[in-house]
């Protein structure tokens, strides 16, 4: 058995060659050299996502948010780091149902997001989508999709449109370690590579597909290797440090924008809360969660960086205060906005009348 183990390790050491250039560049310089202003901005965005999601959890507990509600707490560095490397309004983004964080990172108004969560007329989908189905075409944010893995094929379609229109844009398609086992993901990998589509596939590996740990669901748990069969280079990225995420994203964006076809990024991250609000998360220990929270938290990490750079505690406290006010305002707005008018029941089924 030891012998077998050794062979496997040797095989693991030899990563697929296609991975090497991008991964080597990332490993040579893992952290993006942000200015203080940039890092403060990342910090502020991550705190916004964290506080927004905590508030959403609270509103769920009060019965103001119904159905499924998947919180992004713990994964903030992924959306913030990657979005910061994109050209907003030019590149397109698509994700699954854990979508609040990506929208906030894109600068979409927290009020209309929260109002969608509470199912109100002022919600970004006029209350008809809910937590899992939110879109902002003006930001080129294409959802918010409730079917696990669907966004990967749809994202390849958005990338197809970028290429067809020769507009220089690219698509980022986010999906989880659970979605990574859906067949259509690999159908999309194949066509994206075959047609050289401008797309970055981002696996947010938060270690659990609902309640199933990665090692219980996946024969290959190194998701960045799963593009190898399609000659898609993979990157293995620490998703708990916003500067590492940004450094890796820059490399991927540059690679894709230069016309080299898709990149597969695996962002290793962790969600602190259950899969959705009704998940007691009994499949993992409290110690496991606390270990990540205490030692790898992306916000605490950025905070420590900022303090080490000489940014004052006061500045960070002011940010915290401002964000809390924004989230309170969003929650008040979401609670006090009216429900959709009954006529909305029949609108938007079709665009045209026949």
């Amino acid at each position, binding site marked *: 058995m030891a012998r077998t183990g050794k062979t496997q390790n040797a095989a693991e050491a030899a990563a697929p060659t296609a991975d090497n250039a991008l991964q080597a560049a990332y490993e040579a310089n893992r952290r993006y050299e942000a200015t203080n202003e940039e890092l403060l901005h990342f910090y502020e965005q991550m705190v916004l996502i964290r*506080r927004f999601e*905590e508030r959403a*959890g*609270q509103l*769920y*507990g*009060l*019965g103001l948010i119904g*159905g*499924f509600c998947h919180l992004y707490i713990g994964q903030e560095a992924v959306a913030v780091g990657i979005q910061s490397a994109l050209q907003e309004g030019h590149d*397109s983004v698509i994700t699954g149902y854990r979508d609040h964080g990506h929208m906030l990172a894109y600068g979409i108004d927290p009020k209309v997001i929260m109002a969608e969560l509470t199912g109100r*007329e002022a919600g970004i989908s*006029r*209350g*008809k989508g809910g937590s899992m*189905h939110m*879109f902002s*075409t003006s930001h080129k944010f*294409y959802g918010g999709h409730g*079917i696990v893995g*669907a966004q990967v*094929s*749809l994202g*390849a*379609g*958005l990338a*197809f*449109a*970028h290429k*067809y*229109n020769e507009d220089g844009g690219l698509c980022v398609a986010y999906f989880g370690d659970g979605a990574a086992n859906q067949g259509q993901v690999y*159908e*999309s990998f*194949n*066509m994206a590579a*075959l047609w050289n589509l401008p797309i970055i596939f981002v696996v947010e590996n938060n270690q659990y597909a609902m309640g199933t740990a990665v090692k219980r669901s996946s024969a290959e748990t190194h998701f960045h290797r799963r593009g190898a069969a399609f000659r898609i280079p993979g990157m293995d990225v620490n998703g708990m440090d916003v500067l590492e995420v940004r450094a890796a994203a820059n490399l991927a964006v540059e690679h894709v924008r230069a016309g080299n076809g898709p990149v597969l990024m695996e962002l290793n991250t962790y969600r*602190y809360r259950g899969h959705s*609000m*009704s998940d*007691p*998360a*009994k499949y993992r220990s*409290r110690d496991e969660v606390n270990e990540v929270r205490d030692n790898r938290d992306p916000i605490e990490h950025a905070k420590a960086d900022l303090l080490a750079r000489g940014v004052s505690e006061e500045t960070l406290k002011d940010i915290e205060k401002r964000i*809390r006010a924004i989230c309170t305002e969003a929650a008040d707005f979401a*609670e*006090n906005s*009216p*429900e*959709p*008018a*009954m006529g909305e029941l*029949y*609108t*938007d*089924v*079709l*665009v*045209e*009348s*026949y």
Partner: protein
Amino acid sequence: MAIELKMPALSPTMEEGKLAKWLVKVGDEVKSGDILAEIETDKATMEFEAVDEGTVGALLVAEGTEGVKVGTVIALIGGEGEASAPAAAAPVAAAAPVAAPVASVRPADPVIPHGTNMKTSTVRDALRDAMAEEMRRDPRVFVMGEEVAEYQGAYKVTQGLLAEFGPKRVIDTPITEYGFAGIGTGAAMGGLRPVIEFMTFNFAMQAIDHIINSAAKTNYMSGGQMRCPVVFRGPNGAASRVGAQHSQNYGPWYANVPGLIVIAPYDASDAKGLLKAAIRSEDPVVFLENELVYGRTFELPELDDHVLPIGKARIMREGKDVTIVSYSIGVGMALEAAETLAAEGIDAEVIDLRTLRPLDKETVLASLAKTNRIVVAEEGWPTCSIASEIAAIAMEDGFDHLDAPVIRVCNEDVPLPYAANLEKAALIDASRIVAAAKKVCYR
């Protein structure tokens, strides 16, 4: 100011729960993310986390208490954090029932100008010409599917398109229906006008998730932001001797789905005019063709831009004694049946629905008011079929005009067999339509 912590709802259906255990005590400092209590729902034990910072002021419900209603104040936290938002009841919009919008009067087919030359065309060529004309007109239109380009189409419907439009706009895919249906849908969301060919709609079963969940529902779920002007087209229904997995009519499946347009033309003129309309539509369209009809030749007006209205049925033959409603390949059988009936003194009206969703009820009901009898001829299974839908419409909206029960003439309710004699027995034909028409005429 103290913040009230209320018994949370921890699942979509939770109404009350047991406060199993407090993990904090009065005087403890808490910050957001700290676990305050364990709460048992009917399904599981959940952790209740703090959102605000402060000092635990009072624990108002003792641990072990069962049946604590959601919303009950269970603890107070005093501190510097902002006051928790009051849990005001959701302001409810006036719940007066709103009537579903009434369909506007649908436009009739455009009048073909006097003196227009009528040429003959196969359905296959009419479909190809429709795509070619729309591709010339709009650079966003492209065709994608298995064998559509270099092979010229598995059924030669896309013949010649590659030569005229090149590989950028006529794209061979791998055999990967789920994937390319998703890519087509995504490309439509991204502003293009994809025409996605399924070699047959049997294979679209692998892709039906994108047709329904992604293409049909997104406009509604996005409050009208995300349009999806995609056309899914290909042959549908039984072909010939290909067995059960390659022989199914999906018309009723797709017609069940709000958010989709479903078109199933019969002749060349409708195939061309409706496919052009489908490609121009802002909505997702399922366009169901029929392999056995591809090679049939019909008259087709030579017009620069032959576009027909979606959602409008066509009266193929006027009559006064009985209405035969059909679509796709069934229309040919209905017309044949009408000829036989005429010889026996029964004057049948034949309606081709053409569009299955939205369904042109008005034309069906107007015909019923005239003939007082309906037979529906459908090459497909009877259960939950378009025929069932027509029967329901006749009963709900035309009951007073019915002089006989509506009869469904459909395929036998079995997977389509391979053996020639069994296959023939399983599929509808003109003689069964004739028999049904006579029955509703009490002849």
